[in-house]
């Protein structure tokens, strides 16, 4: 049997595909079901957003930041706002910071719901996806009352937020959180602890802690390898020092440390922690203004600044260079999905094709964030 002639197949998991999260392309060299290598090909969603910033100015760029990562639009808004504020030394009022945290944590829950739902659908279970989307729709209803939009929020401004909490919104938000905690438990009973699901995810795509740091992974991908690094705790910003919450990390309970199941469970636990932060924020929110005074034609002093925030995908970095005029000189966003694409090629050797889908889903890759 050793003289049987076999050949490698080169497959194209093309830009149009039901499972890759956005428009991604993989050139897969496979020997039957087992892959030798999967080479990612990115760039299908490049929209020159960073260049557009140089044309529209500081205030006008805020809606464009929604489109950098439309699933985590609040975080990108916050990043841009914080970059401009750091450069111009503007201080956001306390209530504004609390509003930012509330909006951001609701967005984190919504983003993780989409991530775990899409992952379950890629594995084959169709109902957890619709349940997650149903919960996400309820959050979208809340945010629609807050800022008027369901996906591209444009909620924050340089110096704070654009709208204060409407009357009656706090009670609705608390009612939603009371509804959400048992739903998360039910979701876990439906799919997270399901033996078939666990078998599909455990020991797939194991990332060692050293690899995670070398390949620049951030967010839940990094924390699943056991490394406790969360910008909200380690480089605190905004109102996060006021809240008590834990940072879940992976522990290799179902397989090796750093496998897909760890990444999935870290996201589930982060949702529960976000609910805890939200309850504290909604209880302790101080009265006062939510927006600082910023000139209409905003001209920060010349210089550069860099800020980091913990978005749904991880450590999102914003780098801004200003030349003293009303238009930025250079804007750059560093997103977690871009780094995650780099590690797929290394991990793909020896995986089966079905596992490639699991791996991409567990790294929570959102295509517009890769290409901007």
């Amino acid at each position: 049997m050793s003289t049987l002639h076999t050949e490698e197949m080169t497959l194209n998991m093309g830009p149009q595909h039901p499972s890759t999260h956005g428009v991604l392309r993989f050139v897969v060299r496979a020997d039957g079901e087992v892959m030798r290598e999967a080479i990612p090909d990115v760039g299908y969603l490049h929209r020159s957003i960073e260049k557009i910033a140089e044309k529209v100015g500081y205030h006008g760029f805020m809606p464009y930041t929604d489109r950098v990562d439309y699933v985590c639009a609040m975080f990108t808004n916050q990043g841009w706002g914080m970059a401009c504020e750091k450069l111009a030394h503007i201080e956001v009022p306390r209530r504004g910071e609390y509003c930012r945290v509330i909006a951001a944590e609701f967005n984190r829950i919504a983003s993780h719901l989409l991530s775990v739902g899409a992952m379950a659908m890629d594995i084959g279970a169709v109902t957890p996806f619709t349940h997650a989307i149903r919960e996400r729709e309820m959050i979208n209803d809340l945010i629609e009352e807050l800022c008027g939009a369901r996906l591209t929020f444009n909620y924050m401004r340089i110096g704070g937020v654009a709208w204060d909490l409407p009357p009656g919104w706090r009670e609705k938000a608390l009612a939603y959180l009371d509804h959400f905690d048992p739903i998360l438990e039910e979701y876990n009973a439906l799919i997270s602890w399901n033996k078939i699901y666990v078998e599909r995810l455990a020991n797939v795509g194991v990332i060692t802690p050293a690899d995670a740091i070398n390949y620049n992974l951030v967010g839940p991908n990094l924390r699943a390898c056991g490394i406790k690094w969360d910008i909200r705790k380690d480089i605190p910003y905004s109102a996060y020092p006021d809240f008590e919450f834990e940072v879940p990390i992976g522990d290799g309970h179902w397989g090796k440390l750093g496998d897909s199941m760890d990444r999935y469970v870290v996201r589930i636990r982060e949702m529960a922690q976000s609910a805890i932060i939200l309850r504290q924020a909604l209880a302790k929110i101080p009265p006062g203004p939510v927006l600082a005074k910023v000139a209409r034609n905003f001209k920060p002093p010349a210089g550069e600044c860099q800020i980091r925030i913990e978005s749904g995908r991880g450590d999102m970095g914003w780098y801004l260079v200003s030349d003293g005029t009303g238009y930025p000189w250079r804007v750059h966003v560093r997103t977690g999905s871009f780094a995650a694409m780099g590690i797929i090629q290394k991990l793909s050797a020896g995986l089966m094709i079905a596992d490639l889908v699991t791996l991409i889903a567990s790294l929570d890759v959102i295509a517009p964030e890769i290409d901007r």
Partner: protein
Amino acid sequence: MSAVSEYAQNIKDTVFTIFEGMAVTASHFMRKPYTVQYPDRMPVRVQDTLPFRYRGILEVDLEICTGCLACERACPIDCIVIVVDKDPQTRQMLLSQFDIDIAKCMYCGLCSEPCPTGSIHHTTEFEGADYSLESLIRRFVKDPVIAYKPKKGPETDPRIAPILNRGMSYLDQWAQPGGEKPAEEEPA
């Protein structure tokens, strides 16, 4: 023996977790579906259920437009085109063109924020699909109109007062910087 116990444990885990999963899905048969059966099986029009802050298609109340061009400057995608000149005879500001290209508009709300009277505002209308691209440029000026001059005290004209009240209440939804009235326009 650990292989046998692992074997038995696998079978037990599979059976128990699938049992729980089936119980969860069975409970969903008894719940109301979350679907909104738009557009024909709804008790109320969707547009009437949306919040006041909803950022739908833009609309301009020309009666209270002051011709200040703040919205045109603020728009990040240049979808608003306004032509306003001073009429040499009557010495009044005349609006001769106010076009909003709703195909380009990204519904961000940056134009309604600086409007002094709330004349340009988002409505709850979202059904804008049409057959021709030309119809997506909403032209709000049919014949040239005189721009509105805001009065120092309350508005006395009974035709304009309700429109102005609605515009100002729309503006009140937005956060005021520093908790006070919005800052005056600084010279460019």
